[in-house]
């Protein structure tokens, strides 16, 4: 058996300690919150340390940090299972209590079982869940192509209608700031599409002038996007990154405990 330092440490930190902590927590409630914090501290520290400590046991290809990434991929799969369990629990409860909108829960569960069933069937039969060797879609891909994709596209396409309506009703030059926003939006909307060429379609003699003006507008749009927008976006991204770093530090240091989902007194 390969007893590398990194591997053994990971097993102790993320397997033995949580299991021992779970059993101890049954008798000592105070430990219930401390063990997850302990796990959280090391799960946060190891990837950070791997950036600054270029040693094999932590940053090497089979070191603690890459191995933790591998575990995270596996954990993410289990998180999906947890999500499915949650969906089942909530919707079966809704159906059994005949709560408002319960027929939608029936549809949701049918969708879940049919799609999931086809996926599992594809996995077991070796057929897969994509396009079969003869070019025909597998049952899972069929559901994806003819149910899931049109439904999602339909919901998203409704945005165009609401955005147009909202722009007409709410986008008003009420004050200086709103006017600047309005002018910038109009310029970008004009510059991102060949609008002038479209307007000149009925008068072909105007086409060259429209193309020339459209090019100028395109350059102005690019400048707005690249310079004022780029600068503002950089500021927003840096601000958000600092916020995320401080939040991560709070989690690592055990100050932020909201993710534990503990109630009062825990």
């Amino acid at each position, binding site marked *: 058996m390969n007893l590398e330092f990194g591997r053994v440490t990971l097993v102790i930190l993320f397997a033995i300690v949580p299991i021992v902590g779970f059993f101890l927590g049954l008798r000592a409630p105070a430990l219930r919150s401390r063990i997850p914090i302990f796990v959280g501290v090391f799960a946060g520290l190891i990837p950070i340390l791997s950036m600054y400590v270029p040693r094999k046991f932590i940053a090497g290809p089979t070191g603690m940090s890459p191995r933790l990434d591998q575990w995270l991929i596996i954990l*993410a799969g289990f998180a999906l299972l947890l999500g499915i369990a949650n969906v089942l629990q909530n919707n079966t409860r809704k159906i059994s209590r005949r709560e408002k909108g319960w027929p939608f829960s029936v549809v949701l569960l049918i969708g879940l079982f049919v799609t999931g069933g086809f996926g599992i069937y594809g996995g077991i039969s070796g057929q897969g869940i994509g396009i079969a060797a003869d070019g025909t879609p597998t049952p899972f891909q069929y559901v994806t192509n003819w149910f899931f994709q049109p439904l999602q596209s339909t919901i998203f396409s409704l945005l165009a*209608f609401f955005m147009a309506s909202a722009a007409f009703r709410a986008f008003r030059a009420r004050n200086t700031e709103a006017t600047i926003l309005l002018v910038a939006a109009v310029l970008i909307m*004009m510059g991102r*599409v060949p609008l002038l060429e479209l307007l000149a379609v009925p008068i072909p003699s105007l086409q060259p002038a429209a193309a020339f003006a459209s090019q100028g507008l395109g350059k102005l749009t690019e400048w707005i996007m*690249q310079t004022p927008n780029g600068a503002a976006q950089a500021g927003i991204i840096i601000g958000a990154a600092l916020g995320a770093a401080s939040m991560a530090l709070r989690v690592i240091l055990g100050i932020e405990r909201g993710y534990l989902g503990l109630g009062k007194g825990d």
Partner: protein
Amino acid sequence: MAGLFERIVNLDRRWIFLIVLLSVATPIVIPIGLPVTTTGPTRAAFEFIEALHEGDVVLISFDYGPSSAPENDPMAEAVMRQCALKKLRFIVCALYPLGGLGLANNVVAKITGELPNLRDGVDYVNLGYKDGPAAVMRRMGDDIAGAFPTDVHGKPISEIPLMKGVHDLRQVKLVFTAATSLIGEWWITQVHPQVGIPVIIGPTAVSAPKYYAYLNSGQLVGMVGGMKGAAEYESLLRARYPQLATFYTTTRAFTATKGMDGQTVLHTVILLLLVLGNVAYLRQRRASAKARA
């Protein structure tokens, strides 16, 4: 006149919905064929791929779902066509949970149908979907097989000819991510700094403004922003590859260039609505100020 403006301001929104429907649907049925001018970020993306050498490996990541497929599909297809014609080998993966894999499968099937000479496992490989995008990307930086032990058909990575000599992302020349969410940004923030691999992003138009900051800082080598970016890419491909010029002019399938007709008409309609709404609002405001005086 005042009555007219009042009616405009209080226009039933169902009329607006009808106008939007007509302005999008009509150009799809009767294409106008408006010209497409190219922008710097798209040209940079195109030229970067053009500068790669035959046999180089490119990773194309499907990080979007059906909700933004009309924007993202044409750009993913365009990049894949370019890779195939330049004889670059490409690895396909999907990291978006809500339908990314289905879209990747469809695009791969479409392109391999158009170019039947492409050999699965030799010229391209579809690795399929894996959950936990940030961890998957980081793992791919160290060991691709660690994140994707098999391809989408269940064939072990070690048995795939294309993957010989491609152990991790350091052997890949470029990541192209067609993205609708944060996943695209993670390629820039998580993978690029750690592995040093160049990244090109194909975001939806609504999220494109954010990526100008990354373009300015040099963390992105190019961007194909929204349907407009995809249409620009198609235009660049048409100019460089005669076979694609014929394809894009004759295909009955949806392309970004066709979609831009609808988008242009819709933008024009929204602009008209904006102008009308604001003129009516300003007149109303002036009238009420006069009445108060």
